[in-house]
């Protein structure tokens, strides 16, 4: 055995070596192939979605900004102020203060209603647990994702803001798109 023993050397498999002429020919052919490839990309046209003007359509189950709901027939709020959403929230960003419904001031269909319902969207992680926790489907995750603002305090959404329809509707993806 030679003094230098490389030990277990895996033999590297290399492609056949070409001479200069064959190599140049191959490089030329490969270059043409590459040019054809990029040209086909050119012909296909851009795939960019020009964001502020065009928006990416979201899927139906997309978890965007929350929405509170009313009953369509009576116009009463679905939320009964049970605070289960606040309990389920891992980011602890929902604040609910409940109050009793009276015959003169009937806000929700249940016994109580949410006098204060605030979601701090700067803390929300959009996990959707509130939606799952809600026994009356009063809160759902909407499709709105444009929520940037200049102030943190502006990101605390009140009940009125959550009940209102979002101003700019996000396009919804159709089935199979």
């Amino acid at each position, binding site marked *: 055995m030679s003094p230098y023993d490389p030990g277990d050397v895996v033999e590297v498999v290399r492609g056949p070596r070409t001479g200069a002429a064959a190599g140049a020919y191959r490089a030329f052919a490969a270059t043409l192939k590459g040019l054809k490839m990029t*040209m086909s*990309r050119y012909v296909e046209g*851009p*795939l960019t979605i020009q964001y502020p003007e065009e928006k990416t359509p979201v899927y139906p189950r997309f978890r965007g900004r929350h929405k509170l709901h009313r009953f369509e027939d009576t116009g009463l709020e679905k939320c009964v102020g049970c605070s289960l959403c606040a309990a389920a929230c891992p980011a602890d960003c929902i604040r609910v203060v409940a109050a009793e419904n009276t015959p003169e001031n009937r806000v929700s269909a249940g016994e109580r209603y949410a006098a204060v319902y605030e979601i701090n969207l700067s803390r929300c992680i959009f996990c959707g647990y509130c939606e799952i926790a809600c026994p009356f489907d009063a809160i759902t995750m909407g499709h709105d994702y444009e929520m940037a603002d200049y102030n943190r305090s502006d990101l605390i959404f009140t009940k009125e803001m959550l009940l209102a329809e979002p101003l700019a509707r996000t396009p919804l993806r159709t089935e199979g798109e």
Partner: protein
Amino acid sequence: MITVAEVGFYESWWVQLLKALVIFAVVFQLVPIVLLAERKLLGRFQHRYGPNRVGLFGIMQPIADIGKLVFKQQFRPRTSTGWLFTLAPAISMMTAVATMAIIPFSNVVDIFGTQVGLYGIDPSIGILYAFAFGGIAFYGLMLGGWASGSKYSFLGAMRAAAQLISYEVAQGLAIVGVVMMVGSLSLTEIAAYQAEHLWLFIPQFVGFVIFTVAGFAETNRPPFDLAEADAELVGGYNTEYGGGRFAAFFAAEYVNVVVVSGIAVTLFLGGWNIPFWASAPTWLDPIVVIVKMLAFVFFFIWVRATLPRLRYDQLMGLGWKVFLPLATLNALVTAILVVAT
């Protein structure tokens, strides 16, 4: 007085002055167009739009680019050599613009009773004029990189020197075939020859390929942009440059692209001739040349979008071991055929 080169056709001095200004104005206008076209086309080749926010369809983008650069501070590293550092972009720009002069847009034409050659100058040394200025253009890059006093710049400068000189040899030999077939160095005569014969890229295909590839190397364009090599050398020779001086290097590169396209069009792609339409009106000639030039520039951009940068040893190997022998062989075979027929 020593005669450096004889000139094929003289006009009176005011015509020369006027046409120099016109050619400079027209060809220089191609630079922002090419600048924008490059960014937009690269975008298209990558499924993007490219710049489309400044002005209508982004047409103001070159002005925004240059404007941004011009208003920046002129910065110079302490280790740099001042006057060379300042001179280098000027050399780059000057040689690029000077080469512009020999691109013929048409033969001698009659404009309002005055005989005018639609080119800057038609020296008897013709294409060698371009190579002479191409040779000086290296100094712009080399001095710029070297005078910067930074390691990246220095590496870029060394690469530029080695690459440009080795490719100039192959490029020079590639056009020997053309010169032999035409029997003249004058670019106007080469273009006029192609009106009667085949366009020279058909009989001189090997020469055309070598000239084009060497042209990429000469203009420091991808895949031969080793002197700049943003990925490994930051910016190569122009690492330390900023503001107006960088703009000068930047613009010089694009002028070079336009000029090399112009020379390639004249030498190989029939100059101002339109195929199968020998009786085309004369006023169409400059437009034909410019359209062909832009088509060639498109090819430049297309290649940039396609090919990755070569490794340094691959580049030198390709230049010396493939293109130089091929070009020599091409010249030899052409010489035999020219003599035999």
